[in-house]
């Protein structure tokens, strides 16, 4: 598929590392032809422990970039009312020229190859496109890329810290906070930002006493539910999403019952 797909020429050291981490995939990678650049990205993407566990589909990880690839030079005729935008995406400075109509979501997905953010409705009605803009969760489908000059965007691709998954990501896996996974990037961006909102003591519609501007808010399940209601999960993973966020927020494991009688 990818032009630069080719058999990896692994150095001995890389081969050793790879064998240690996921020996079972070595042969496959050699004959399936995953490229070396992607391979290296995998190394930075995943913590060793998770990797072995998730190896069955690790091939997928290999084929997608972590940071935006340099924007393709577009035929200028395909851009109407072009706007030059300089912004930061997942920490890296980016310059793009966009059609003034282009949303941040479409820019990420179609221009920068960051397809983690999803389009569930394109009208602000589902939350699948949630990203963190200058520290706050927003909907990238209702944000014009043109308006992002000088701003800093964090997408699902940038939530993990280098090798380390964000605790919310780990908790989503642990509590099975998803099924199809399509809402998940938005849920996770939303949850990560929500934790900060709670730290700021922000209120919600179900907050008992609004007038008591408190310090960091300890969120009940009901609070988490209300604050996550802007992220629709059609698969209905809500109870597990709430459990995952609750664990990260409270620092305490939440009971998961496997009841077989």
């Amino acid at each position, binding site marked *: *598929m*990818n032009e630069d797909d080719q058999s990896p020429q692994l150095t001995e050291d890389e081969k050793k590392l790879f064998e240690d981490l996921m*020996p*079972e995939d070595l*042969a*496959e990678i050699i004959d399936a032809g995953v490229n070396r650049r992607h391979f290296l990205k995998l190394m930075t993407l995943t913590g060793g422990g*998770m990797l072995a*566990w*998730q*190896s*069955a*589909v690790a*091939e*997928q*990880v290999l084929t*997608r970039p972590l940071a935006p690839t340099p924007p393709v030079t577009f035929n200028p*005729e*395909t851009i*109407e009312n072009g706007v030059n935008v300089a912004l930061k995406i997942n920490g890296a400075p980016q310059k793009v020229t966009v059609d003034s109509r282009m949303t941040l979501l*479409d820019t990420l997905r*179609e221009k920068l190859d960051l*397809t*983690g953010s999803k389009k*569930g*409705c*394109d*009208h602000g*009605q589902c939350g699948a496109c949630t990203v963190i803009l200058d520290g706050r969760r927003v909907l990238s489908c209702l944000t014009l890329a043109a308006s992002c000059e000088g701003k800093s965007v964090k*997408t*699902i691709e940038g*939530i*993990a810290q280098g090798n380390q998954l964000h605790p919310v990501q780990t908790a989503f*896996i642990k509590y*099975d906070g*998803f*099924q*199809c*996974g*399509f809402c*998940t*990037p938005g849920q996770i961006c939303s949850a990560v930002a929500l934790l900060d909102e709670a730290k700021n003591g922000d209120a919600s519609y179900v907050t008992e006493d609004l007038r008591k501007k408190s310090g960091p808010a300890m969120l009940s399940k009901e609070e988490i*539910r*209300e604050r996550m*209601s802007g*992220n*629709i999960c*059609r*698969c*209905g*993973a*809500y*109870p*597990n*999403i*709430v459990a995952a966020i609750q664990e990260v927020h409270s620092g305490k494991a939440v009971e*998961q*019952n*496997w*009841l077989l*009688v």
Partner: protein
Amino acid sequence: MKDKNTNVGSPVSRIDGILKVTGKADYSTDHPVKDPAYAVIFKSTIAAGKIRNIDSVAAEKSPGVLAVITHKNAPKLNTKGGIRGGAMLQSADVLFFGQHIGVVVAETFEQARHAADLVKVEYDQKEAKIDFEKLHRNGVKPKDKEDEKRGDVKVALENAAFKVEETYATPIYHHHPLEPHATIAEWQGENLILYNSAQIVNGAQNAAASTLNLKPENVRIVSPYIGGGFGSKGGQWGNLVLAAVAAKMVKRPVKLALARQQMFNSVGLRQRNYQKVSLAATKDGKLTALVHETATHAAIQDEFVEPCGDCSKIMYDTPNSLITYRVTPMNLILPTYTRGPGKSTGSFALESAMDELAYKIKMDPIEFRLKNEPEKDPSNGKPWSSRKVVECLKEGAKAFGWEKRKMEPMQNVQGNYWVGYGVACGTYPAHQRDSSAIIKLNREGSNVTAIIELAAADLGTGTYTILAQTAADALDLPINKITVRIGDSDLPPAAGSVGSVGATSYANVVNDACMKITDELIARSGKQFFARPTAAQLMVSEKIANIQTRADSKPMESAEQYSSHSFNANFAEVWVNQSTGMVRVKRFLAVTGAGKILNPKTARSQIFGGNVWGIGMALTEESVVDPRFGHFVTRSFADYHVPSNLDIGEMEAIFIKEDDKLANKLGIKGLGEVGIVGVSAAVANAVFNATGKRIRELPILPDKLL
């Protein structure tokens, strides 16, 4: 990592989890392609008639536009090729509002969407059949559904000590998977690659090929991750082939994603049903008659009727029974399978009626159900392969605290809320379908790894994970040595992830493949073993570097002699705001007997998902048609309310241990659908218990409880 052979049955976290939480799982339009063009569909704005003229001059001249495709220039397609719902630009006829009537292809999405707005269409309009309220009385017998009759229901109803005769209505529901239907079509010479979510990978391949007049081997479906389907991605719809047509015309890969608003009338729906249920019982609560008569609608050109009477055929023991269907063709998109087809809506009617009758008899609704538990399948006399309804009800009652329920409504008041408890049962058939799989074993030194390949689907159901678990145990390898490849029509053909046959069919064929490869290794060794060695051991002891084999599995013939179904009992506690009528489901418990539970973590999620859907059916979801125009007034995700996080309260799932080797070798019965069945009735019954108001028309919106 795990002890030997204990992967199956353990709460293993999803092996595709890391991809999903890092945004790396590729759904349809996430696949990287070079230089794609973007297609946007435009739709009819009348419900019946003919297109007189399409003026696409402005659109064609609009910057970046590469093609405008309408019935005038679209290639001839085979409309009987298996694509559902028509709407493939093959004629000027308009059969429903929102029918695809053209496609704009442009350099960018923004340009395509804008150009689509510039197209002007003139119609010769005909009177449309839209108003179900008026039309349903003229329904006719569906083509494939005869009336099913046992005994004499009329006499039984006349002589009943107690009876209920009520009509239950459910609205049009939409699947609305969070990933809208979307395709990347890429031609490579004669070969066509379609990145497209498909619950039935081979079905999508065949339908696309046949419709496009291609050979199946020239069409490849790539669908490793599916953003939900719920039936709407079982059959494929016009948008799939229109993407291929567009790609051919502009000689470039084309991305075609439906807008959320277009999903309402592009990819099927769950039809509106009026279900009349008549129950008769003796003084002491023995059912003597059960009648379930469904009136529904289908499309003008095609028929699909969801089997609302299915639960009623098998749930309860009654000497007299009648199940009928009447269908009215209407100018709306063709209905299709929607999670728990027939059973989720049918159980709302049946289980509400059971609750009504129990209340009339003044009998606890659990006791009433236990009293009418059938020993054999009442519809065909076959023995059950397994049926755990009694256990579901009893265990559920215990776990839920059913004894706290008040028999009379409006007795449990908490502050400004009425609190009520409800129960309802559900069922869904368990089947295995033909599937094939290839297994490859590789060894380097003492390190043995396995690759499993089949054209299966994982739409959030956990297929990747349960197959890795199954193979790990069958081969005696740690689970991290297993790679699962699915979602590609180049892989061996497999059943679809539809009708709850996925897990059963896939796990059985993977298990068979593992057994087969072990047999082949034993044969190859030429040795006799006292105890059967594992494949991993043989790879090492016989120094085999790699080996592969393919298994083709079919359902056991003996399974035909039994009636196999999953069963459940659902328990709901609702709080109804006395002032506003807003309902919250504070607690929900589903107790399920569904054969072997391969992975309690993903199984629990499947059940929760079904429960959330059922709560949506009961409380929030409804599509409303304006009978003058035939369009959905509830036309966006802001108008059609799928449940939000706050709509869902505490949930718990209990599984009854079941080892049903009569159904299939591994004793799996499937979970995808049964989780929704009975849910809306449990909620509605709880609302009655809370408020004394019996709501027979879903959803239970605030205004119905004022």
